[in-house]
């Protein structure tokens, strides 16, 4: 099991946060294009930072606890997946916080923030179609 140590913790993160989408009603996985674009834009600098850290010897990865699939011979596959999984967790958490907050207090601060972000149901009738028609 040891080579799966890194991969397993990422799977655990996805498993723990999945109900935020499918029980609480966050809409992250159901916006795959926006998600992909967000990851590409927001995580590129962090992946570069990670590569710099590896190159400068700030950190390295234990071959014992990783699968051994090193991308470009430098970054373990799991490390790249880290920059996919953790932002997904953050987005799911944020949306769940806004939605739960708005449910608890429909006129409260979180409800306003949800609406401002277009995360409240009242603000989201088919945004892309609407944008095209407008």
């Amino acid at each position, binding site marked *: 099991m040891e080579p799966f*140590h*890194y991969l397993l*913790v990422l799977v655990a*993160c996805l498993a723990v946060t999945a109900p935020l989408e499918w029980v609480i*009603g966050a*809409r992250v996985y159901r916006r795959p294009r*926006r998600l992909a*674009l*967000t*990851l590409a*834009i*927001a*995580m590129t*600098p*962090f992946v570069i*930072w990670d590569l*710099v*850290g590896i190159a*400068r*010897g*700030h*950190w*390295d*990865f*234990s071959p014992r*606890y*990783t699968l051994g699939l090193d991308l470009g011979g430098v970054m373990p596959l799991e490390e790249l997946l880290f920059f996919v999984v*953790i*932002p997904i*967790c*953050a*987005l799911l*958490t*944020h949306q769940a*916080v*806004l*939605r739960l*907050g*708005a*449910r608890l207090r*429909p006129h409260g601060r*979180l*409800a306003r*923030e*949800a*609406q401002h*972000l*277009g*995360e*409240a*149901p*009242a*603000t*989201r*009738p088919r*945004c*892309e179609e*609407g*944008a095209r028609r*407008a």
Partner: protein
Amino acid sequence: MPEYTLLTVLAVVLVVSLDLVVVRTRLLATLGFWLTLTIMWVFQIPVDGWLTRLDAAIVRYDERHFSGVRVFFDSPIEDFGFGFAMVLATLMVWTVLSRRSTGAEQRRPRRAAAGEPSSGIGVHRGG
């Protein structure tokens, strides 16, 4: 200053200025962001600990390149700055993209979307 420490400080300053001044998403002024960050940091303790704990480290840090301060399960304290920057950057980009796709609609009157019963937050004025 050790390089990882320096890069962490720079990243935090950069992301904060993007949020407040350049992109003006102003997530730092929202309750939702701080609640999200708190939850993410709490979960970062065991997750990062799993990666960094010295008796079975997956990611091995060179002591010369960070402050040397390890917290909880041997995580370099800089990791929490890295986490802060990652969370804020992610939510910031998502917010910009959301505004872009809903922006054209902002001025139009809104009606409750009948098609989304499952997410019933219910921001109904005078409902």
